């Protein structure tokens, strides 16, 4: 099997895009092969060109993109093929699933009609047979109540179910090759694991080749036979998965493999004082309702939660989207109305109004997930970083503020000379450093970190984690670290709270939780992270 001729071979593929700043090359002459029935992974960080490679092969480039080279599928060059010929191969012999399960299905048609359309087109079945086939496919991807689901619209289904439907559509015509472009990135970890298992099972059953495009080394190690590592539009290393993981040759591959956040945090000294404490904190939202619209629904986002954060402690709050972890973080900072007791130091701050909270704000800071949305596009980095000083140290002169901005930027590892620039001129990781500098300049005691690394590439994540740990050490900070990513939490936190549907499911010392999770939910959450941990131990 290993010696079989490739069914898909890409030679000297170049992909470029016309933009206002001239031509941008996304892929710069790469070669890769896919053999029948094997699983190939294309790994790289954002901007490496890994997706555009396969988009070009499928004729799905955006209108300003163009590709040269050859993409040879069983003797035919897909790049030169007229659309009508290409359409006989796309969706039939080669099919593709995408990263965005929520938007990849047409919202205006039922699941059934979207499944039936490609079946009829490629196989020429009559309506009745195609319907039966669609039903079989939904059963194949293990969607409950498939008969009813045929009549459902995409909006009536969850992200995981939609991705299953996408897989069913892709497999409808028995393809030779299934291209999966980050198929699980947008899904919660528990769902991720299910989808990956489904894909592995289906491959065993149907025997197609799978091309995984991913940034997630855990997926690669678990599923792929061979790996191509891409950076800046080029393949820097290729080989069997085992070989790549055990003896990486290229520096970039080594860096990627080492990019897993490592180390862990020691618990605070015993008897460290409690700095921030919440008791029976509850946050509710009204949904709908309003003027003339009847009674609103009440959603309990945080349901009577108690938490105590000690000086120099990091509490990791983990849970899937919608578990209420971000809401809890904001409620504790009094950025959302809540009920219950919140103490900062000796003081009950739950009843304080806006004015009375203001002096305390400098000691209670927040860093957001999205490094793009959390910096005002109209202000320079210097203005952003010093905005808090305007409030809390109004006596400072302009020059003093400037000096403080320089110090703060230097502390987070940025060149202070950049402070007259605007956020859009920085990369994601740099922006996150700016956001951290904005919080740190006030010398806070407590910082709530709301998924500060989730939007970043692995290698950048690692740097941010290390930066945050260094800052904590230097300033005796206390962190509330909110994340869905357990491998990052493990490296950051000494105590973990697991949340689900607004409640605490489990809590305890980090190592204890990782070694002996008591709840099923915690175990499923850890499935992905644990796997990578084992690999790290092996490697």
């Amino acid at each position, binding site marked *: 099997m290993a010696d079989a001729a490739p069914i898909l071979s890409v030679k000297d593929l170049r992909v470029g895009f016309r933009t*206002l700043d001239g031509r941008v090359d996304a892929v710069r002459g790469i070669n890769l092969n896919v053999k029948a029935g094997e699983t190939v992974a294309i790994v790289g960080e954002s901007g490496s060109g890994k997706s555009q490679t396969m988009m070009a092969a499928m004729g799905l480039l955006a209108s300003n993109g163009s590709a040269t080279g050859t993409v040879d599928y069983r003797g035919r060059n897909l790049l030169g093929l007229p659309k009508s010929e290409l359409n006989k191969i796309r969706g039939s012999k080669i099919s593709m699933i995408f990263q965005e399960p929520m938007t990849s299905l047409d919202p205006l048609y039922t699941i059934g009609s979207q499944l039936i359309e490609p079946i009829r087109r490629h196989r020429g079945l009559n309506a009745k047979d195609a319907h039966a086939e669609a039903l079989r496919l939904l059963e194949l991807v293990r969607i409950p109540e498939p008969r009813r689901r045929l009549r459902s619209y995409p909006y009536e289904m969850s992200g995981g179910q939609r991705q299953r439907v996408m897989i069913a559509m892709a497999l409808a015509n028995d393809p030779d090759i299934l291209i999966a472009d980050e198929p699980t990135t947008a899904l919660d970890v528990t769902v991720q694991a299910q989808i990956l298992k489904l894909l592995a099972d289906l491959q065993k059953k149907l025997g197609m080749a799978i091309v995984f495009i991913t940034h997630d080394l855990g997926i690669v190690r678990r599923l792929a036979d061979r790996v191509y590592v891409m950076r800046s539009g080029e393949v820097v290393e290729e080989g069997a998965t085992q070989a790549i993981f055990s003896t990486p040759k290229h520096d970039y591959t080594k860096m990627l493999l080492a990019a897993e956040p490592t180390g862990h945090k020691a618990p605070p000294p015993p008897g460290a004082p409690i700095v921030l404490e919440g008791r029976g904190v509850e946050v509710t939202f009204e949904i709908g309702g309003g003027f003339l619209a009847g009674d609103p629904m009440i959603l309990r986002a945080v349901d009577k939660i108690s938490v105590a954060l000690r000086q120099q402690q990091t509490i990791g709050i983990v849970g899937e989207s919608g578990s209420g972890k971000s809401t809890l973080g904001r409620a504790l900072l009094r950025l959302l109305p809540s009920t219950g007791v919140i103490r900062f130091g000796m003081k009950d701050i739950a009843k304080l109004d806006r004015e009375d909270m*203001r002096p305390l704000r400098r000691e*209670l800071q927040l860093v957001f997930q999205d490094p793009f949305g959390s*910096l005002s596009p109209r202000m320079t980095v210097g203005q952003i970083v010093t905005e808090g000083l305007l409030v809390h140290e109004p006596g400072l002169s302009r020059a003093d503020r400037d000096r403080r901005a*320089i110090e703060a930027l230097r502390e987070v590892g940025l060149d202070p*000379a950049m*402070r007259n*620039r*605007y956020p859009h001129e920085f990369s994601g990781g740099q922006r996150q450093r700016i956001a951290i500098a904005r919080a740190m300049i006030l010398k806070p005691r407590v910082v709530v970190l709301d998924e500060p690394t989730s939007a970043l590439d692995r290698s950048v994540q690692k740097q941010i984690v290390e930066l945050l740990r260094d800052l904590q050490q230097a300033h005796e900070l206390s962190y509330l670290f909110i994340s869905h990513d357990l491998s990052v939490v493990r490296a950051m936190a000494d105590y973990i709270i697991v949340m689900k549907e607004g409640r605490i499911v489990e809590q305890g010392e980090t190592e204890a939780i990782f070694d002996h999770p008591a709840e099923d939910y915690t175990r499923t959450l850890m499935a992905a992270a644990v796997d990578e941990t084992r690999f790290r131990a092996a490697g």
Partner: protein
Amino acid sequence: MTDLAATAARAEATRGRSFWGDAWARLKANRAAMVSLIYLGLMAVVCIAGPWFVPHQYTTIYADYVRTPPSLSAYPKPEMIETALADVMKRMRVDLKEWHQEGERIFVTVTSSREIDERNTRYVDRSDTFDDARVEEKSADGKTMVISAAIKQQYFLFGTDNTGRDMLSRTLMAGRVSLAIGLLAGVVAVVIGVIYGATAGFLGGRADEIMMRIVDVLYSLPFIFFVIMLVVFFGRNFVLMFLAVGAVLWLDMARIVRGQALSIRRQEYVQAAEALGVSRTGILARHIVPNLLGVVVIYMTLLVPQVIILESFLSFLGLGVQEPMTSWGVLISVGAKNIGTANWLLLFPALFLVSTLFALNFVGDGLRDALDPKDR
């Protein structure tokens, strides 16, 4: 300390591209928008300064030149001299015996049954065609006289209207009025809309809901009804009226600004400012307003042509600017009524109006692309 000075120097060198600087660079790259912008500038200069340089007043009536077609050469044309002369003779109550032209002057021999008063030559000067009338010869009985007069050279590049007024000066004057009204009412609408919309969006909740419900009700009243009521109330004072028109056009602006304000309020950078303890006014001044400005500028460029069209429309209906003051709408309305016989009455004002609207439109599109580059 030298280190600090060095970074300060480097910081100066790496001054970033601001949002507005970026937008301006993008706008400059858009050729249609830049040409339009220059065109608008020229149009404004021509309309504002032009009337002082055109040799005709926009109100002056040239009785000899009613509905004269536009021409690049000077009036009067030869055949017009005779008609004008006959007209003068009638006023002088004398008979024309003979006339001929020598260069720039004409020599006219007139007779009458009675003695001719020399002062009657003033009728020649009063004519729009001649001036500098002199008595060259006079017969002994005073019943025959030779009068010479200079032919007044006049240019009517755009022709004249039904009462003999120069269309060039009228079109430029109309441009002043139309552009001024567009700007005035546009600013009024934007100011009201921004204040109302930003307040609703920033307050949110119940206040927002009630404020927007009011906008909804105003929306469902026929727009033209409103305008007519305003005309009725404010009479024909055009400044007052267009303040009022601006006061009607703010509804869209209010909706747009409110939507924007709501979405900006939800942005993480506003939440970050709240977490820093920034006051409401600080958030409004440093975050909401600067981020709203782009939308306001875009909408303003869309609003100005809207107001100009509205003004023309009202003037067309006879509800707008009143004679002898004029605007493009007034001129077009007259032109439309005379389209069969004197099409230049429609042609020139329509050309000015439409080209201005075109240019505004391109500038608006260009600004939208420059300020909101998410499409690319």
